[in-house]
């Protein structure tokens, strides 16, 4: 199989190092995106260093989601 983006592997290594995968019936796992600043670091009193444009966490845009229907083929637009 072709591999997914390398970022997934980075995230995997990070999560593995944090041992936060969670058990099947355990509580919801909580972990930070390794590419974003930790939420605990950002408080009103403790604002972390300013980030450059390229360092900002990626903003989610619902319209960019690729959707695949139940039994349909993979979506592809040229």
């Amino acid at each position, binding site marked *: *199989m*072709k*591999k*997914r983006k390398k970022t997934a592997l980075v995230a995997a290594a990070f999560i593995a190092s944090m041992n936060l995968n969670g058990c099947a019936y355990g509580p919801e*796992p909580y972990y930070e995106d390794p590419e974003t600043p930790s939420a605990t670091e950002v408080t009103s009193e403790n604002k972390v260093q300013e980030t450059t444009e390229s360092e900002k966490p990626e903003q989610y845009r619902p319209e960019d*989601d690729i959707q695949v229907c139940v039994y349909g*083929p993979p979506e592809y637009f040229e």
Partner: protein
Amino acid sequence: MINSAKKAEDMKKLAAYRKILREKPVLRNLFLELTLRCNQNCIHCGSRCGEVGSEELTFEQYRVFLDKIKKDFGTEKKMLCITGGEPLLRTDFYEIMEYANSLGFNWGMTSNATLIDDKAAEKLRNCGMKTISVSIDGLENTHNTLRRSKNGYERAMNGINALIRNGGFKSIQVTTVVNHNNIHELEELYAIFDKMDIDSWRILNIEPIGRALDHNELTMTKEDYTYMFDFIREKRIAGEPVTYGCSHYLGRRYEREVRDWYFLCNAGIYTASIAANGDILACLDIERRPELIQGNILHDNFTDIWLNRFRVYRRDLYESNERCGNCSEKKFCTGGSYHSWNFDRNEPMVCFKDVLF
């Protein structure tokens, strides 16, 4: 991976966007069910192929329809999703798809691949097929048993390998429908697919539609579901192109972890479908009840229906069910997928509350 706070924030954005889409739907996926004939007889077939007749539109009727779609909607960011039955059983299949390609439509197909050899793969590429999803529902014996096809597995794998060998496609995907009896084969299937140069592996749970309703023994348990979603998530964390399908709200533990998007039932907001006989509905897997079939392309204007008569699909299903209406996740779930809603009892046939979250 995405943290919980960001998931909550994203899903709020999606809920707001869903409202906009219901007012201004965007046609992205147009399903064409070319036939209900099939050369297999799957015990979990969502379309009950083989039991139902197959009235079919002619090439000329598709030509007129596709001309109209291009005129009214254009072809940019539109995808024709070709399904059946087995689409390749149509003798005029290539004629239809060559015409769609000449108009500029991107198209992909769902197939059992048993009719694909090198010659067919070349023809599919030459008439513009971009993507394909091929069903492999278990190891060889399991696949053949589920599909009631003596050599279906071997033929399907030969078909996939012919597609890979010939190349030129944007995405070759294998789809596996998981049930209670084949879930233990996922790791062995992974070992097989990992050696193949496919683009992705989509794993779905069996849905309570079509002939699957007659086979309670295939229904997945709570443990099966958890195992399946953990399996997908772990493979994705390892960088494998494994994904769950579109169905169902999964709760914050699994949303966006097992697929690249948050749950949004596309029916009627991104997706419309034309059944084999020309009936117009949002999704081919939705129960084909008279009140949900919005017209027929042989005597109704599809564009008018898409713009004005698809309201039945553009609402929150939870509003008609007390339990769903009281659920804390209703704004994100909205009652779940249309194809798994029981319209007689006004309740979801699949709900992962108390299963996954």
